[in-house]
């Protein structure tokens, strides 16, 4: 049996199909992936993301530890700001992609569920002489995401802070039903929305509250198709220990001039390596879905491999993300994808596949 979030009973009572995800028993869908996907694009959807790891840092050297393991620059964060960045191994490969939150009184980090233990260990082994403690708050808290064009208005008086007053990728410590919570204007769907962290005992109450406000329960299936349309990478698919940030198109989150950090020396070299495969977007002409592991071919030669693929409910097209040799990455390049033994024609397209109208 896998781990369960504080919302597990809700998922079961709502008739969700529960699957194993990174060792967690998580809802993959309540009704239909496409229906849930479309709800997020046009209205608002509710996701249980309590499986993700929530870490906080205590001690005077919190900033120094984050700077030591993180590719982005935490020193320039304003109070309340949230920033995306990577934790890399010493070879420059990606250990995880994480969000760092800056509070007036310290820092927090949200990491992927499947990487939580690995990252906690990595942080602890990186402490050295620094005076800092890493506190894993995951088991004591629940985290829900409300995503979609109606999310901001629906959460106006949810907590002590109106999310409309928060800039995109800003957060506020506030209160939900008289208990401390965190409200952030962040997400993983390509839509505007919020993520809320509450104590684990408030998880179900918050869930029911958000459903009453009109948010439709959505599972990890829709979360995957939504993030794929928005070309957001998923660890284990687009990201891994062998892939560096430049290949992944995440060079913007690597601040090589911020000072030393783990992986920096390797990244300085890898940035100049123009022979490495790059993350690209693919549009397939047929309806068969190119899933993870399908080979990209040009003139009979293998030139890459698919990392994620789906049928895009918003675009009504078959799409995929892949890693391709530099010679095959130009937008408009035509190639074939070996989908279970049969070649399907595909074209390299610009990422993201979908961008919301602002």
């Amino acid at each position: 049996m896998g781990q369960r979030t504080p919302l597990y009973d809700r998922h079961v009572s709502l008739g969700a199909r529960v699957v194993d995800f990174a060792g967690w028993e998580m809802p993959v869908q309540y009704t239909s992936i496409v229906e849930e996907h479309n709800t997020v694009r046009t209205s608002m959807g509710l996701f249980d993301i309590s499986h993700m790891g929530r870490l906080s840092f205590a001690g005077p050297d919190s900033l120094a530890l984050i700077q030591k393991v993180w590719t982005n620059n935490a020193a320039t964060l304003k109070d309340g700001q949230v920033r995306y960045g990577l934790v890399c191994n010493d070879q420059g490969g990606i250990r995880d992609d994480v969000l760092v939150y800056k509070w007036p009184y310290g820092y927090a980090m949200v990491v992927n569920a499947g990487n939580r233990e690995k990252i906690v260990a990595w942080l602890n082994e990186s402490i050295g002489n620094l005076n800092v403690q890493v506190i894993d708050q995951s088991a004591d808290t629940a985290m829900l995401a409300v995503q979609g064009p109606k999310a901001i208005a629906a959460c106006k008086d949810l907590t002590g802070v109106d999310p409309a007053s928060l800039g995109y990728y800003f957060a506020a410590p506030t209160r939900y039903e008289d208990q401390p919570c965190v409200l952030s204007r962040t997400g993983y769907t390509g839509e505007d929305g919020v993520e809320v962290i509450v104590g684990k005992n408030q998880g179900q109450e918050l869930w029911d509250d958000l459903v009453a406000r009109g948010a439709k329960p959505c599972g990890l299936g829709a979360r995957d198709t939504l993030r794929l349309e928005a070309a957001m990478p998923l660890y284990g698919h687009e990201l891994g220990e062998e892939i560096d940030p430049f290949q992944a198109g995440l060079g913007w989150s690597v601040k090589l001039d911020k000072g030393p950090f783990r992986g920096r020396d390797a990244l300085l070299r890898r940035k100049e390596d123009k022979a490495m495969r790059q993350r690209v977007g693919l549009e397939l002409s047929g309806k068969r879905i190119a899933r993870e592991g399908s080979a990209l071919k040009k003139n009979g030669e293998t030139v890459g491999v698919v990392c994620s693929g789906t049928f895009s409910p918003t675009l009504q097209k078959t799409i995929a993300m892949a890693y391709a040799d530099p010679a095959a990455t130009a937008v408009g390049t035509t190639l074939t994808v070996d989908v279970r033994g049969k070649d399907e024609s595909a074209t390299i397209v610009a990422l993201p596949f979908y961008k919301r109208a602002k």
Partner: protein
Amino acid sequence: MVPKNLRYSKSHEWAKLEGEVCTIGITKFAVDQLTDVVFVELPDVGDHVFAGDSFGEIESVKAVSDLYSPINGEVTAINQDLIRDPAGIAADPFGKGWLIQVKPEPGSNLNAMMSPDQYQKQIDSEAH
């Protein structure tokens, strides 16, 4: 929810043999498991199918599954409506959502397939 007049396979196909015509589809349980069907690939009329071998595939947003024939024979018809509207299979998998019709080889039958009661037991155990 499991019609009594059909026979069933472990891989969730159903079949009905009426004289020279064997109609093959997939069960409601299978369709519910797939949800969001986006594509159905079927053989051409005149192709031969073989018991236990894949004759096509059904793809949903989540996953792709092979379709297995329960019988040897020659394809005499395919459901063109499903090619045009794959998601339509969800509405009536045991009726209008049939996949192919086959003219069985002489002497072949569906005796190796499960009875409705046996199949019901299988899906009851899979649902948990």
